[in-house]
């Protein structure tokens, strides 16, 4: 199945940000914007929701902390109690470094793995590069053309009137 996109090419960051605002105000849904580098404030104008990754990090960290404490208390307190340095079997201060490390490890790995899953990023992941110049010196705004729409002149006009230096069409196999 193929999908048709209209691509507006921009060569100025500020023009792009203004264009995004105007295009969205005109009621057009923007599929994605590609830029060679992260642009400050683009999340706000695009209306991108805040990532929920920190919540994942918190719960993965909580899991890591509980796991580390349970592991050490069970191993050294119940499964194979040993007296080390004259300390009690369950000597909490001695468990803190391991607990800290496992908390950090679990929350970091949990975040990375979740990120891969959510973004479907895997070795076979195929990236649709709409316009290769978006990796060099141009910004590309992609708008999905609704099925059945053949006349894109309205979109063309909208993009051009908002400073696009070029407007292209592209069909992408989904």
């Amino acid at each position, binding site marked *: 199945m193929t999908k048709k996109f209209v691509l507006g090419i921009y060569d100025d960051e500020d023009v792009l940000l203004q264009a995004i605002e105007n295009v969205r105000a005109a009621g057009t849904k923007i599929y994605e914007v590609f830029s060679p580098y992260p642009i*400050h*404030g683009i999340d706000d104008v695009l209306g991108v929701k*805040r990532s929920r990754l*920190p919540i994942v990090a*918190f719960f993965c960290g909580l899991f890591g902390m509980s796991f580390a404490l349970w592991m050490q208390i069970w191993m050294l307190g119940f499964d194979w109690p040993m007296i080390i*340095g*004259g*300390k009690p079997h369950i000597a909490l*201060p*001695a468990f*803190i*470094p391991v607990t800290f490390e496992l908390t950090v490890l679990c929350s970091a790995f949990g975040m990375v793995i979740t990120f891969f899953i959510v973004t479907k990023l895997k070795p076979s992941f195929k990236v649709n590069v709409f316009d290769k110049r978006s990796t060099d010196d141009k910004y590309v705004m992609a708008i999905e053309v609704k099925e059945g729409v053949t006349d894109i002149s309205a979109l063309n006009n909208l993009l051009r009137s908002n400073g696009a230096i070029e407007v292209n069409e592209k069909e992408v196999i989904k």
Partner: protein
Amino acid sequence: MTEERLIISRKTNNKFFLMIAIGVVLLIAGIIIAAMSGGHQAEGHGEAAAAGHEAAHWTKRLYMNLWLNNVYFTGIALVGVFFVAVQYVAYAGWSVLIKRIPEAMGYYLPIGGAVMLITFLLGGHDIFHWTHDYLYNQFLEDGVTPNPQYDPIIAGKAPYLNFWFFLIRMVAYFVLWILFFNWLRRNSINEDLHGGTDYYHKSIRISAMFLVVFGVTSSTSAWDWVLSIDTHWFSTMFGWYVFASWWVSGLAVITLAVIILKQNGYLKMVNANHLHDLGKFVFAFSIFWTYIWFSQFMLIWYANIPEESIYFIERLGGNGGHFKWIFFVNLLINFAFPFLVLMTRDAKRQMIMLKIVTIAILIGHWLDFYLMMMPGTLRTDAGIGFIEIGTTLIFLGVFLITFTKGLAKASLVPVNHPFVEESVHHHV
């Protein structure tokens, strides 16, 4: 960029004076109560009075409070200068709009120096055990009889811990700190008047020099003023520990001052993004303080060598468990509370959350210094009563007066700072 002048109204100033007045009243009331119950206490502690020459007296408690509060507030003032220096050396742009606040904190330093000098000269024997001459004489006056009070450990530290060297160091610290503070401040104000980037580049060089001075003096002053109270004890982490405590308290004061100024209609260009960065600072350095605290505690706890672990015994089960609650409150209020409350992004961007946390941290680190100083001096006679609250209020009032006076001397916005535009558009 337009100037913004802080105007301290008579009403506000009167509030500060009222604070000092309440402090004085509480202090006097506390002293009267302590002096009246003094004889009674000596009865109850007959054993201690017989064993020691240092029966706890209200003067001792007063000197300890002066010392505690002065070390605390001097540290905060010093951290203000340190913060500015760090921002310069890091070529930081975000902090330019709030830079005048840490800068003005340094105005307390001369007062801190004077109070410290006077307190040491008057109450040195009450604060520092090592100042007693009899500890150093191996023999009594006849030259043959061994001196029962001779302390070979303290005598071994005499080349560093002696009255004159201590005094010279104290004066040197303050002279250096005030010198660098004035130097940075003068450049900053001249920049406002004349503009150009020369002042900026010069400030970076001054800051770099100050950081070297601060790196050494923050550690040595911590040994002198806090560690040497427990003269027998030693800890290689201690310089860091005191620095961490000062630093996070200073950051809390900066954040709190920014919020209060903003709520009173000043600092119009400061927004949630700047608060977010300050919040991150407070959050991160609360964890840093805990890290240092734990690094010191765990090694001593694990090795369990008597000469080291005595420090924590005095603060936990020792002294009749007198300080146990502060020991745990210290960890709760300075680690668990800021850690959990400031964890989310939204909390760091909200004034009310930051306000609650910074006030808690300021109380927490006052308790932290209390815990560093009181068990080694007042022992079970330590308490938190009228004397403590009164002295703290007096110091707080004086600090606020000097701080706001300093703030009002210059524009709140460093108008000609080369990075001021970057700070205005700061975005996280």
